[in-house]
């Protein structure tokens, strides 16, 4: 063999050894299931499958399962999506019982009703199935952890931002939604506690209403008539922002509005300056972090905190484009292109 041919052969050999060899190891990591692989079956139960926030949570869970199955050669993670079409606590109880019967290793659940689900969760844990909650907790149950926001802290963030927007003075009101909802109560507490630091801000009241757009806007309209000098709203939910009607009763920027949740339907209010701040929840992480936490506990045998906090993301005109792209990446499809290129 001529020296030049020898060199070519050797170069090709080195290429294969260094590049192909690495590729082989990578493929070995990713594709081949050796004997003795531990399969971890997780049943995921959200509140309703017709709600896009839970669809993105599902996407996060599936992505985490895929990534973790690639990372650990001796582990295969399966996520079984079992969510009622519409909110139904009894149906969730049935699904938990079915998961136990079918020998699931773990259950992730967002509780539609904490009382109904507590006993079902306890029964599952007693049967050897680990349970964690996300979004909506059942704190008296035997679940090992809850992943969700600190509602009181979110309320404080709303109040602080509203104080910044109103320069710490003037009349403001709180839109409270369902008076009996525990998470909303905590948010309202957070707002009221934080407002104590702003003596020149006058909270004219907390207003409760059925959780829909029409009732929320009707209530706001009546409050505006009672207090024509009202300059701000802190909303613990985004009910008035689920359509276009709010635009008929307020002028952009005249009344400062801060609210919790930042779904695609609400973004136009930020763009047109009707709303100055939304606190968005990274719902994709509901699924992703939950699956990762289950693997940490069951596969890695690590200690897991009783409560894992989800950090809300402030959304304003400044990061409307970034937040829109993030929503798209999480699986939302109804986002106007003009936001995606901001």
């Amino acid at each position, binding site marked *: 063999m001529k*020296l*030049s041919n020898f*060199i070519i052969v*050797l*170069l090709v050999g*080195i*290429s294969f050894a*260094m*590049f192909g060899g*690495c590729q082989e*190891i*990578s493929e*070995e*990591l990713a594709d081949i299931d*050796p004997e003795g692989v531990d399969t971890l079956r997780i049943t995921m139960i959200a509140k309703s499958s017709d709600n896009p926030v839970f669809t993105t949570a599902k996407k996060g869970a599936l*992505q985490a399962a895929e990534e973790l199955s690639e*990372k*650990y*050669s*001796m582990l295969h993670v399966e996520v079984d999506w079992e969510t009622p079409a519409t909110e139904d606590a009894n149906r969730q109880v049935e699904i938990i019982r079915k998961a136990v019967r079918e020998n699931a290793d773990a259950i992730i659940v967002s509780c539609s009703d904490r009382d109904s689900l507590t006993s079902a969760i306890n029964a599952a844990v007693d049967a050897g199935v680990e349970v964690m909650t996300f979004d909506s907790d059942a704190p008296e149950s035997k679940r090992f952890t809850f992943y969700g926001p600190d509602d009181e802290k979110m309320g404080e963030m709303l109040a602080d931002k509203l104080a910044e927007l109103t320069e710490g003075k003037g009349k403001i009101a709180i839109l409270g939604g369902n008076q009996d909802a525990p998470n909303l109560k905590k948010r309202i507490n957070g707002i009221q506690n934080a407002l104590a630091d702003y003596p020149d801000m006058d909270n004219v009241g907390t207003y409760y209403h059925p959780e829909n757009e029409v009732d929320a806007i009707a209530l706001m309209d009546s409050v505006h008539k009672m207090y024509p000098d009202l300059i701000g709203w802190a909303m613990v939910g985004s009910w008035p922002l689920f359509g276009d009607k709010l635009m008929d009763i307020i002028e952009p920027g005249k009344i400062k509005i801060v609210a919790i949740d930042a779904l695609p339907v609400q973004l136009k209010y930020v763009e047109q300056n009707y709303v100055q701040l939304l606190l*968005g929840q*990274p719902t994709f992480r509901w699924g992703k972090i939950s699956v990762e936490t289950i693997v940490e506990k069951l596969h890695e045998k690590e200690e897991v905190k009783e409560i894992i906090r989800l*950090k809300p*993301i402030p*959304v304003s005109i*400044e*990061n*409307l*484009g*970034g*937040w*829109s*792209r*993030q*929503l*798209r*990446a*999480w699986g939302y499809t109804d986002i106007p*292109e003009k936001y*995606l*290129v*901001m």
Partner: protein
Amino acid sequence: MSAKNSQQTPQKDKLSNGQMFAYGLGGIVNNLLGGAIGFMSIVLNVGLGINPALVGTLQAIPRLTDAITDPVMGYISDKTRSRYGRRRPYIFIGAIAVGLMFALMWQLPPGNSEMFYFWFFLIGSIIFYLFYTMFATPWVALGYELTTDYHERTRLMGVMNFMGQFAWISLPWFYAIMENDRLFSDSVEGARTLAIVIGVFVAIVGAVPAIFLKEKFVAVDADSGEKKISMLEGIKKNVAEFLKGLVTTVKRPEFLKLCAGTFFLFNGIMLVGAFSSYITIFYVSGGDNDMGAKYMGLFGTINTISTLMAIAAVTWISSKIGKRKTFILATSITMIGSLLKWFSYDPMAPWKVLLPAPMIAVGMGALFTLMGSMIADVCDLDELETGERREGMFGSIYWWMVKLGMALAFGLSGYLLNATGFEVELGGAQSSSTFFWMRIVDVFIPAAAALIAIISVASFKITEERALEIRSELEKRKAKTAPVSAALSSE
């Protein structure tokens, strides 16, 4: 210079494929050693829990010791006279010693404190870098002197740079190998084993240039005929000579132009390496890590293939239009590629991030192909003016400048990212102004740096004609001193 004016390489100055290949193997080892610690250091944090700031310190301190050891090694090598030459003994011993040290420094015993690991690794690193310098400095210098031909030097550097790319292809896989839970119980064990494999590879392959290559130049014994002096006086004399040589080297304008060209082009791209990843993941892909990683992977693959092609193309074009013009052409393409990024970061068409990859690769492919060759030309000019061949000194200062610049670029990169307002917890929901400044940095810093590199090298005076004149003068001088050299060679 047009093709018809370009000189053909005389047969005596041509290097065989085997010689080029042997030298190129050193390129693989050099790049592997240069990059391996950086790619494996993640184990210190993830596997052993060492604070990231301490890990950063571990990587920074050897850069400071390099500032002293690199030029000293260059000086020692330049001044060495032995029957095996002034480069090969150090390459041979250095390759074995650095391979052994690399394997040893990763044998981190389990169950110790963070500070134990810090000191263990720091001491290991310093010794490792000493041996690395012992291998790399003479190897670099050997490349400058293997051939005296203007174009053959570029071809040699092209082969070396081409082969050296294979190390960069393998390095990103190291973490996956160490983390493979089927091969190793944990990443620390993975690092121990991988280090032994690399150490053996380095010791064997790194010694090849020393075994199969012959040195062209023999150091002239400037002290012959002088009276014997004491050891202390000898040290003083050598230190004085070293410092004088150092000053002479850094004062040479043509060398400084090459250093500036390299510093700006290379570090301009290194500085924003992380930015490109962040923009691709968080801006273009909206925080979708999977999608971002896919595009970064494709970008890397296109970049690597393009770099390999660029090295071949640059080597050929340089023989037609000369090194300086080729460098300016290649760097201009990189500058345009960098500017193109402004338009290619499009969240509505993420695939566009791939468009600038081949253009950016051209400059990097050209850089270390042409610079090595051009420094060899400077060494000839230096010999003409000083009567000494000091490839070791030039090579060591040049590469120390590259390494220092790279360390600075990595350090500064984090500060720049913070300055844009980037907050990792926000994921893709960064503010518009943050994304704007990230893109400004990512696009305009490498473009501006490339422009400065072009300006720096544009006035480089050693053209092919001038190189031939210098070579001719040196040959005449060599002919006059041939009897002396022959006598020295036979000692």
